[in-house]
């Protein structure tokens, strides 16, 4: 249905928090299904109304079929990710035996801290992604990415998680660090640095945490190799030709540096950057911007000022991105898409833009 934009098998929607990634991912999913492709949209924490629109119920981690009517030949499924449940699920699936599983799930470090490990949501997103990718039940997957401090954190998540497990599994927690009463033993194997690190941990973190972590990593040991392999596989998937990144930016010049940084970083790290989309642009107002009037409370004048600001930002970004890079924009809509019909209107607008390359 679109000629300008070549749809990949895996489309990853990235961008800073609050730019409308989730809504756009849903609209892209709709567009894809209408083009006759069986599509899965994987999302995080969407707004309640959007949840209703997509029919993703309260239950996270379960795929739900979105009702699109008979006219649509493709199928659209949507799923909402729950990091903690995915983590528990992985432990459950990959633990060698029930005793090992219970040791991990009952560990104090795991219970208190594992759910808030850096990038755990991102990491679980990629774990889940790999799972559905391999299951191969959909011809296309559209992945909405979780809000991160820096949007690229998502890409580093597998590696960070593995490094963290590695730092624990290999070095911090090996049995020889602990004697039977649970006290820390000299980390001779690591040499002088090891002793210093040990004393740092002892001093700053305290032995109790270290012991809990030690138990956690020991219990986690048998699972670790699998995590490492999957992290590598998902990294390969993300740089492969099957995957295209769809970069969403906020409007206005203030957002240009972030967007540019993002675009460059994606390409530097070997990922395929597809369309860049500036979302929620204040539309041309049909009157001149009058700042004084805007300050005095004239909303139309204010919107005209914002429209000019956003247009400047868009041109600035276009210049900096260069002519080869497809750059699109979508207007701020009078109402946020909240049910399948208004989502469909957004999808139409998006289709027009993508077609117009």
């Amino acid at each position, binding site marked *: 249905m679109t000629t300008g934009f070549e749809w990949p098998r895996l489309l990853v929607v990235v961008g*800073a*928090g*609050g730019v409308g990634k989730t809504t756009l991912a849903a609209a892209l999913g709709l567009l894809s299904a209408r083009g006759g492709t069986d599509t899965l949209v994987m999302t995080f924490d969407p*707004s*309640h*109304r959007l949840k209703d629109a997509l029919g993703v119920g309260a239950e996270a981690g379960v795929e739900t079929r979105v009702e699109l009517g008979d006219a649509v030949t493709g199928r659209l499924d949507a799923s909402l990710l729950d990091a903690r449940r995915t983590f528990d699920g992985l432990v459950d699936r990959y633990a060698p035996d029930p005793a090992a599983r219970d040791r991990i799930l009952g560990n104090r*470090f795991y219970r*208190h*801290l594992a759910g*808030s*490990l*850096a990038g755990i949501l991102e990491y679980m997103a990629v774990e889940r992604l790999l799972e559905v990718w391999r299951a191969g039940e959909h011809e296309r997957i559209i992945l909405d990415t979780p*809000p*991160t*401090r820096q949007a690229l954190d998502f890409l580093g998540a597998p590696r*960070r*998680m593995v*490094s*963290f*497990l*590695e*730092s*624990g599994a290999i070095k*911090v927690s090996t049995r020889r660090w602990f004697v039977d009463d649970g006290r820390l033993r000299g980390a001779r194997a690591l040499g002088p*640095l090891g002793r*210093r*690190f040990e004393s*740092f941990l*002892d*001093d*700053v*973190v*305290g*032995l*109790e*945490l270290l012991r*809990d972590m030690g138990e956690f990593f020991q219990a986690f040991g048998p699972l670790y190799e699998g995590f490492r392999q999957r992290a590598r596989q998902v990294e390969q998937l993300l740089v492969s030709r099957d995957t295209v990144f769809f970069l969403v930016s*906020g409007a206005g*010049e*203030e957002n240009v*540096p972030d967007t540019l940084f993002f675009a460059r970083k994606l390409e530097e790290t070997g990922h395929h950057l597809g369309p860049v989309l500036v979302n929620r642009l204040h*539309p*041309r*107002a*049909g*009157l001149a*911007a009058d*700042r004084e009037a*805007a*300050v005095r*409370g004239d*909303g*139309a004048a*204010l*919107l*005209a000022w914002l429209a000019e*600001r956003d247009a400047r930002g868009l041109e600035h970004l276009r210049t900096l991105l260069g002519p080869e890079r497809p750059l699109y924009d979508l207007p*701020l809509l*009078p109402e*946020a898409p909240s049910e399948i019909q208004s989502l469909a209107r957004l999808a139409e607008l998006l289709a027009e833009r993508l077609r117009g390359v």
Partner: protein
Amino acid sequence: MPAVVKQRISRRPRPLATGLGEKGVLTQLAGRRLLVVTGKGGVGKSAVAATLGTLLARAGRRALVLEVDPRENVHQMLDVPPSGGDIVEAAERLFLQNLQPRQVVDQLVRDRVRIELIARRILASPLYHNFVEGAPVLEEAAILGHCLLLAEGRSRGAPPLDVVVLDAPATGHGVSLLSAPSLVSAAIAAGPLAELTGEVAELIGDTERSAVVVVTQAEEMPVTEALELRTELAARLDRSPELLVVNQLLPGGPPRPRAGESAAAKLWRRRRRLQDHEVGRLAAAWPGRRWELPLLPFDRGPELIEALAAAAAGQDA
């Protein structure tokens, strides 16, 4: 064990001598040590934090706005060069610091491991790197720990302060930041970090010393998230936010529809109706104090903060 943790210079702020009204929420906030400004990404948290810092400084408090973000924003709004990690004086009694979350944890290591060479070796080791990268709850606890040390005059080289305004990182839910100290102290039974996080957890739980300011926009997702934050705060920390700031509202009173009106007039009316709906949703579920701040025709900068400060002072009167 270092003795520093035990030193407490003063736990209560000085009595107020300001021109603030008696009933305003600003007066209430001016008596706290720590204001945590939180909300979903993109709602204008930094502008609100800068505005609060400005208002408190003008009311006679020595205030520091702490930004923990890889990208510095607040300096633009206060019209000073980027802080690059240092404490910068932006105006009389108003200070600014930008820290990378990682720097905060590193600083904690330096404070604890007194021998510089050893501290440097630790900071440079991949083991440490992976450990800290992997456990953000440590970062979050360290950010609040840094606020505590600043606010109580226990941070080396910092000026004396009355209040720290934390522009909370946009990652995840604000409640994960606020519950990080109690998580860490629940996971760590003993040691200096446990003591510090225990103190911070106490500060966060003490409604006479700390305050939570929630920033939102009158749009569905930010409003939903603000309401969730309120519920979670009550459930997990047994406290409610002191102030809700609804940011970037279009002016009220758009004209009635008429033939030949501009597209902007039409959009103004429709967007404002949507905003009114969301403000109504907040008003129904949020019993506490609320400021409504306007969307303004200014880029990030001192003009914006001046206008917001004027609007906020008007709301507070």
